């Protein structure tokens, strides 16, 4: 078992998967805390469907470096959603329209125009990320590393602002923080992370990566800094072991990571209950 693992670790594709997996889960957990607390976790879900639609379009028009197309499209939608856009259509309805629309049209396009012989396999891959993390090309790894580093840097630099914005946006605005700018920043970061995470778990399971680590951390932690750090650690560990397990026993990567996240959540839920009793 260990021998098998060590031999796997020699392969570049395994190394790539681990690097990207760890970085992406780090980023998604950092932003996850804010998204969950601002009651925005559903946005991750909607945006990931948008990213799926964009991916379908880019596949149909035959773009090889499709991340460069998916990323801007998702960012634009994120900005549109968080800004509220059209006053006549309320926020959650707009989200539903965008999310279901992108999913439906994406699938339609893939079916109608795909040159691949295995359409349903392709669709399954984009939705559940079954193998895409294991077939990363070096430029994708490079791009992921660069974007993750930028996201982490921005998060650390604006950490206190993000806290204030999450805790009480009105107060922050009233006392002179440019909350609109920071909301925009959060929207853009969210979009970037979702596009990155598509490789890891596919567009249906991204919310799990965003939500579970922060929910687990919130069960036991008493302050924002602790929640942020613990959820980052949990997320990285879950993804790391998820990837290893899935390679060794041959399960789909995304689903395995999600399963491990769920187990950790249940564990922390129980710890939280026990701690609550003792206090």
């Amino acid at each position, binding site marked *: 078992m260990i021998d098998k693992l060590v031999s796997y670790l020699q392969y570049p594709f395994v190394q790539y998967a681990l690097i990207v997996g760890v970085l992406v889960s780090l980023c998604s957990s950092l932003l996850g805390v804010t998204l969950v*607390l601002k009651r925005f976790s559903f946005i991750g879900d909607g945006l990931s469907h948008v990213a799926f639609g964009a991916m379908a379009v880019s596949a149909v028009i035959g773009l090889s470096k499709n991340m460069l197309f998916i990323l801007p499209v998702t960012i634009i939608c994120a900005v549109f959603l968080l800004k509220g856009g059209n006053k006549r259509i309320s926020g959650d309805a707009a989200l539903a329209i965008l999310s279901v629309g992108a999913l439906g049209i994406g699938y339609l396009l893939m079916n109608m125009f795909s040159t691949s012989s295995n359409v349903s396999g392709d669709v399954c891959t984009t939705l559940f990320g079954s193998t895409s993390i294991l077939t990363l090309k070096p430029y994708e790894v490079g791009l992921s590393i660069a974007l993750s580093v930028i996201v982490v840097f921005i998060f*650390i*630099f*604006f*950490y*206190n*602002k993000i*806290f*204030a914005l999450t*805790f*009480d946006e*009105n*107060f*922050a*605005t*009233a*006392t*002179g*923080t440019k909350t609109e700018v920071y909301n925009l920043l959060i929207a853009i970061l969210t979009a970037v992370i979702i596009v990155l995470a598509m490789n890891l778990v596919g567009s249906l399971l991204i919310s799990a990566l965003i939500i579970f680590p922060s929910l687990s951390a*919130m069960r036991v*932690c*008493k*302050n*924002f*800094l*602790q*929640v942020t750090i613990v959820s980052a650690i949990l997320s990285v560990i879950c993804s790391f072991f998820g990837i290893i397990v899935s390679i060794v026993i041959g399960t789909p990567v995304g689903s395995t990571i999600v399963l491990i996240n769920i187990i950790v959540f249940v564990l922390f839920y129980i710890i939280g209950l026990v701690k609550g009793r003792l206090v």
Partner: protein
Amino acid sequence: MIQIECKNLSLEYEQKIVAEGLSFVVNKGDYLCILGENGSGKSTLMKTILGLKSYKHGQIIYDNTIKQGIGYLPQQAVIQKDFPASVKEIVLSGFLGKMGLRPYYATIEKQIAKENLQKLQIENLENRCFRELSGGQQQRVLLARALCATKEVLLLDEPVAGLDYQSTEKMYEIIENLNKEGVTIIMISHDLVSAIKYASHILHIGKKIFYGTREEFLKTDIYKETV
């Protein structure tokens, strides 16, 4: 010295007018109580003064001293009950508006935050989790945060709502002390008796509009009818 002046201000949401023709001034060191029935637009007025809500008719003039920030204590329950944050984290966040792009708090700011906690007699709660505090303690934490944002003007939206008798008295006492130190207070209240006990000026909005000193208010029909 005039700090805030409202001239013929109207409050409205989309098409619906909430209040019209509000004119009043707030001088440095004033203790202004805003009274009025539920839904008369008190919170809306406060949000408009804070710049959280735009207005179409009328004018609000601010003095330069308060352009850098107004301290604000929101109407309770706006803040999420399950939020994982320590008292320290929350109080320090009062400084953020003044910090521009500087990412972390300076030593002097941490010092002032400590002093504000002492002033409100909650320095022992510094590392506690906000969501585990009582209502009265939570309000004092939020007041300490507002004090970090400014030493000039505090806007308090029903600061004693939901507090028990003792916490209410304590809160009024703390606010009175701050006012004596020179902090201008603008407070929304439901409690007429405490309003006329502490306030220097009264603004009544709703069906009957009144603005004047406490003494003038005591002679109005609004006061006589309610008592």
